[in-house]
């Protein structure tokens, strides 16, 4: 295996293949940079070009693009508080407050370094598990997938920032919005009001842009300010790199979590992102600053979202099961290149498989280096006056939102959800739980439905289900106990002051 790996490295390091990989990286970074566009858009741009390419060059081009989407998407998440893609939602919770404090360069460079580390870790996991992952993937059925979705939902409580009840209701509102459109498994359309646009539900990019981008823009304009509160940038790239190194164990932990969850098909990048954020918050000390600009809130999810790409390639390559839209299109690309992913992939196309591993690792390094080089310059956008920046951003997000379904409903929904998000922000209702509820709505309903129809209530006693349930309980106790302790101490101090 190791000789084959060295041989594959030699093949991928040929100058023309490196060129294709760099082209893929550039497309991936641009697509990630534009809010609302994700890996599927990048794949659809590149797919026509792989016709007639040799397998190694085609793989370098496609993997180069897919690997760095979650590196480039950090720019909008940190600078304007808008998820660059569905897999970078959690980054905004702490990344944007850091930009508001003038520390955009610190947040960005820390994110890029840990993205690179996570991506390389994902590639190592892909290499290590190619031959042993088969039984693990086969062991996970709908009950386990349902419980993993519940694990994601449990993060709602963690992200409620001092308003647990409002956070819980916000999560339920997200779940309710997620039920709009066709019901899974039955030909019933729910809450559509006979509007064709709503038959497929509200698209995730439109919801994310509406909930987070429009309210921030309105507030920036109303305050007549800029993203960074003072007109001074205090953070630096070096500081970000130092922060990443200081939290190396967190980087490693999050990367391991991201790649392990990435192996499970059907969970999705956004769920993994939120789980990584929640686990980060629950497993570190001094977490009072989370949600208000804690660099660890950027490091955890950013490390996990790049690492999950390596994990996600395991079921894609060894079973031909795509875990996301991007990997589904990658499968198409591999078929175009004359490679049929499946159980025989490792045996019959070992060098191509290993070139995928190398492309993943190298693309992450190139992507992070390019982003770090630009971080200082792009961070200056945070001190541009809002009245000059916002009109450009609004045009970009309008165009980006329209690409979701290419229906006028996208733009109308963007405005309506923008107003909803603004009201929630003013009323101090947490918005992140709504996004989590929405993202997990379909997955939760689908796997609950499958579990109930196949096992009745028996699945509730499965050891694997109980193990995940125990993890959820532990995570909730670890996450909520300090908050409760702090509230109790505050109440005690208030009553003492009164007496």
């Amino acid at each position, binding site marked *: 295996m190791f000789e084959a790996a060295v041989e594959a490295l030699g093949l991928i390091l040929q100058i023309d293949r490196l060129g294709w990989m760099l082209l893929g990286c550039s497309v991936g970074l641009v*697509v990630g940079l534009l809010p609302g*566009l994700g890996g599927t*858009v990048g794949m*659809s*741009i590149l797919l026509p070009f792989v016709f007639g390419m040799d397998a190694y060059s085609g793989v370098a081009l496609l993997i180069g693009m897919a690997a760095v989407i979650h590196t480039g998407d950090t720019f909008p998440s940190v600078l304007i508080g808008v998820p660059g893609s569905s897999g970078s939602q959690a980054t905004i919770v702490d990344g944007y407050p850091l930009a508001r404090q003038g520390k955009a360069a610190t947040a960005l460079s820390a994110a890029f370094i840990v993205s690179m580390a996570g991506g390389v870790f994902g590639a190592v996991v892909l290499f290590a598990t190619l031959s042993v992952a088969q039984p693990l993937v086969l062991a996970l059925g709908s009950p386990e997938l349902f419980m993993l979705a519940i694990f994601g939902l449990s993060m709602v409580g963690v992200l409620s*920032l*001092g*308003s647990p*009840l409002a956070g*819980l*209701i916000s999560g*339920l*509102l997200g*779940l*309710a919005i997620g*039920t709009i459109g066709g*019901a899974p*498994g*039955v030909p*019933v359309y*729910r*809450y559509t009001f006979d509007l064709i646009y709503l038959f497929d539900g509200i698209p995730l990019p439109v919801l994310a842009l509406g909930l987070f981008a*429009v309210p921030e*823009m*309105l*507030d920036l*304009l*109303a*305050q007549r300010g800029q993203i960074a*509160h003072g007109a001074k940038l205090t953070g630096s790239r070096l500081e970000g790199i130092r922060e990443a190194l200081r939290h190396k164990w967190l980087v490693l932990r999050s990367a391991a979590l991201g790649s392990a969850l990435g192996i499970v098909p059907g969970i999705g990048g956004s769920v993994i992102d939120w789980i990584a954020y929640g686990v980060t918050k629950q497993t570190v000390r001094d977490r009072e600053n989370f949600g*208000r600009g804690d660099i660890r809130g950027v490091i955890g999810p950013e490390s996990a979202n790049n690492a999950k790409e390596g994990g996600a390639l395991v079921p894609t390559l060894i079973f031909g099961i795509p875990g996301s839209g991007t990997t589904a299109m990658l499968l198409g690309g591999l078929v175009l290149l004359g490679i049929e992913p499946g159980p025989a992939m490792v045996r019959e196309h070992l060098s191509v498989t290993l070139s995928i591993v190398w492309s993943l690792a190298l693309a992450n390094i190139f992507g992070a280096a390019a982003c770090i080089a630009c971080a200082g310059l792009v961070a200056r956008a945070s001190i541009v*006056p809002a*009245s*000059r920046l916002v*009109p*450009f951003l*609004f*045009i970009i997000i*309008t*165009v980006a939102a329209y*690409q979701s379904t290419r229906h*006028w409903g996208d*733009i*109308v929904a963007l*405005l309506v959800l*923008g*107003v909803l998000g*603004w*009201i*929630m922000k*003013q*009323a*101090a*209702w947490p918005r992140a739980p709504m996004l989590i509820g929405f993202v997990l709505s379909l997955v*939760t309903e689908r796997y*609950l*439905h499958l579990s109930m129809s196949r096992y009745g209530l028996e699945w509730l006693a499965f050891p694997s289900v109980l193990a995940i349930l125990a993890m959820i309980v532990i995570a909730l106790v670890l996450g909520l106990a300090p908050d409760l302790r702090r509230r109790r101490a*505050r109440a005690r101090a*208030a009553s003492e002051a*009164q007496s």
Partner: protein
Amino acid sequence: MTVRDRLRLGFSLVVLCLFAYAGLEALDFSRRARYMPLYVSVAGFTLSALLVFLECWRMRTAAGRGTRRGVAIEDLAAEDLFSPEEERHRLKTTAYYLLWMVGYVAMIALVGLPVASALFLGAFLLVEARMRPLATALSVAAMLAGLLVLTHLMHLRWPSSLAGW
């Protein structure tokens, strides 16, 4: 009661009504399509009712105790706390900028994306950012060029308009 208190209470009431509507509507769905929206609505309605009750109760009792809106003041960032006059002014300013955005969308529907974007950006930069005409013209040209290049490279689509542009 401040503007924000009213906003928070009003929003909680709207959410309560939404869950009530969603629950009633869910009763008409077939059995398999019903359980998720129904359970979510019932849970949402119950918790929203509890929140409305707590909001009203805390607003009555919290005055003078250093708490506001049912949330302890220290839970909120300093930037979120404004005097009633400031809050009213912020609401008006936000509504004004929201009108700019709605106007842009209406223009897209009338004259198409490129023309509407050029008009919106040009007018906004001149009126709101007080940029000089030359800088504004250059910004508009750069935006249009970027839009065209991205549209071409990424096969983006533009919304349809009455003018057909």
